[in-house]
């Protein structure tokens, strides 16, 4: 209890002198704010990418691709394949006995990006009639759904903000055909980066006959094994089947891991710099207060509270820096949308996600850096011989 009171007293005294050495205190705060903002922003980018793809996957949906195809764009299924797949066991059927499935055509179009004006690959997905039941998160937020048999497109919300010329009523030229934008949909996942259309009409525009994938609604999550067994034992089919949750998780794995490694590596290097900065500041703080500390020691304060109070001061300054850094990252980058090339060789639009967990993570880094930077100066302060420190000018 005595210790505790001593710690509070000494810390309070030293905090009170901060205004006199604002410059050097700012070094800790700013240094750590820099580290934390970069760390949080980069991790938020990785998480955002991962989340937008993870959202697209479910436990009780399955996606069927041709065997060996790593993404829909590489896959190809014939009309006969598609019929067989939809009739497999484990697929949910509506009251009329029709399977809830969507045989999809995935192609890429060249459309200009809004920000740069240069052509980018945009995914167009031909989706079956049942898609709105299958992907129940997807709903129209402007205009209407496309009509079967017509050259009409509905645009994902993300695609609309990222690519130029996709307002409702506008026409998009695909080859020699004009397609009309009739609606905008939101789904909260990676599909928002896509343009949806009638698959058979889309096949015509791209001179194709087959499909890329079939997505199925399972009767329940456990029905997957039955479906998988049926599809892999059918000699007429050479396909791979996955839960959509696994399929989309694999797609984000590589890039989000890369971003995470980069973020932590860059922040670690910056963190080393910030530790040097903190050491510098705390040494300066301790040396300007060496007389005061010696006086306290002479008065009977023991060494440990001195050590703890110096570290506490460093930690408090560091936390302040961490809060500022996380705040900057949140203010500037939360919900900031960007896009990159995804597995289907087309743009995936995603937003940075500065989550509370990331902010906490950033604060822990700040605390770590602060304590590391405070430790040596604290020990140095406590070890100073009282007599010589008192005599010093």
């Amino acid at each position, binding site marked *: 209890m005595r210790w505790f009171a001593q710690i509070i007293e000494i810390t309070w005294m030293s905090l009170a002198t901060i205004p006199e050495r604002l410059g050097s205190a700012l070094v800790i705060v*700013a240094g750590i704010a*820099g580290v934390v903002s970069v760390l949080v922003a980069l991790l938020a980018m990785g998480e955002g990418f991962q989340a937008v793809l993870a959202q697209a996957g479910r436990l009780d949906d399955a996606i069927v691709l041709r*065997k060996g195809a790593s993404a829909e764009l590489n896959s190809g299924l014939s009309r006969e394949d598609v019929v067989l797949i939809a009739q497999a066991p484990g697929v949910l059927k509506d009251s009329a006995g029709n399977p809830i499935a969507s045989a999809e055509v995935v192609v*890429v179009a060249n459309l200009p990006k809004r920000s740069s004006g240069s052509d980018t690959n945009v995914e167009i997905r031909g989706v079956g009639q049942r898609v709105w039941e299958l992907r129940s998160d997807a709903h129209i937020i402007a205009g209407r759904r496309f009509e079967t048999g017509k050259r009409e497109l509905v645009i994902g919300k993300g695609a609309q903000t990222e690519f130029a010329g996709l307002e409702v009523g506008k026409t998009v030229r695909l080859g020699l055909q004009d397609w009309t934008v009739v609606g905008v949909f939101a789904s909260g996942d990676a599909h928002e980066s896509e343009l949806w259309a009638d698959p058979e009409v889309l096949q015509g525009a*791209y001179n194709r006959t087959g499909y890329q994938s079939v997505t199925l609604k399972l009767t329940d999550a456990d029905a997957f094994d039955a479906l998988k067994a049926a599809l892999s034992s059918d000699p007429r089919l050479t396909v791979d089947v996955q839960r959509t949750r696994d399929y989309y998780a694999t797609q984000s794995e590589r890039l989000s891991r890369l971003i995470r490694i980069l973020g932590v590596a860059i922040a670690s*290097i*910056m963190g080393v*710099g910030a530790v040097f900065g903190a050491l510098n500041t705390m040494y300066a703080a301790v040396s300007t207060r060496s007389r005061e500390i010696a006086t306290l020691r002479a008065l009977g304060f023991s060494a440990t509270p001195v050590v703890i109070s110096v570290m506490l001061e460093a930690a408090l300054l560091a936390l302040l820096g961490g809060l500022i850094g996380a705040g900057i990252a949140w203010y500037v980058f939360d919900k900031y949308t960007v896009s990159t*090339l995804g597995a289907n060789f087309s*743009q995936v639009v995603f937003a940075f996600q500065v989550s509370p967990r990331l902010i906490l993570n950033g604060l822990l880094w700040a605390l770590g850096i602060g304590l590391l930077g405070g430790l040596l100066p604290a020990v140095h302060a406590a070890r100073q011989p009282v007599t010589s420190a008192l005599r010093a000018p």
Partner: protein
Amino acid sequence: MKFLHLVWASLFRKKARTILTLLSITVAFLLFGMLDAVRVAFTVRDSLEGASRLVVSSKLSIIQPLPYSDLAQIQRVPGVEQVAFANWFGGIYQDRKNFFANFAVSPNYLDMYPEFLLPEEQKQAFLTTRTGAVVGANLARRYDFKIGDKIPLQATIFPHKNGSNTWTFDLVGIFHTREARDRNQEDQLMFHYDYFDEGRTFGHGTVGWYTVKVSDPEHAQQAAQDIDRLFANSDAETKTQTEKQFNLDFVKQIGDIGLIVSSIMGAVFFTILLLTGNTMSQAVRERIPELAVLKTIGFSNQNVLWLVLGESLLLAAIGGSLGLLLAMGGAGALSAAFRGGAFAVGAQSWLTGIVIMLLLGLAVGLPPAWRAMRLRIVDALNEH
């Protein structure tokens, strides 16, 4: 120069402080060097050969094939010297993680790339082996490929018509890039289009893209327009770009790497500026009486200004150079970690780095140096 020892002595007046400051600068420049290496790796360079090459792909989208019959028509366009073609294969070697580019090419494809050095006898072997393949030296090193090896690739797009998903190629050649900085282009495998077209189950008679060599780079744009006009309003409209533009567009699709890198650098240098700036002014403040003594014994105002400025410039130069040297090692490690990456801290990065060192030294040193110069001896001596 004759005051160098004086600058040096005052720099190490407080060893711990100087070393810590120095190390923070070193860390900043280490980061700068490595990030700049990444930026450079994603920068599309001008090259002599690249300027005279055009890429003809489908206007509809990059994934859409073009008819083989376009070849003869493109060859007749004025200014076109040679036309090669290729098709993306997208095969996987052993595991999905082992990604590298692999595609089928026309026999004259390698002639279009004089920057890929392939020994003549290997080139002949490639031309005469139907199942032959060539790989870049980097790739060969990574998987320990040797000439004579059979390389199996798992098809992702094109199953073989014999019902198997595996295509097997005979390695007959290993090429190097002429310049070390292009080493990331050694990460590809090429094999014969004829073998590919025969074995695939669909898409016969189509190619992924044409590569066109024009006789005069000055007329590349004109030739590109002429080619696109040939196929305008046809079923397969084309989009013809210089190779450089094609690569630029591709890098842009990955994302704005330049912006990300410069934002991080901004955060790093702002922090370092604050940190060293504070330390420098603190160091000068402590030495005011000494500076006053120097002035008393005849040092001019300018001398004092340069003494203080010299200190910060020296600190920035030593820390910066140390950081960039470390970054050179770090970039090597980065290249090893991302197999096939060719990250290097080049002359351009050093030049930018040196300019930043100078600016940092000036920004940090000028305010305290200015104060030191304006110091009035009497006041300064009185203070203590």
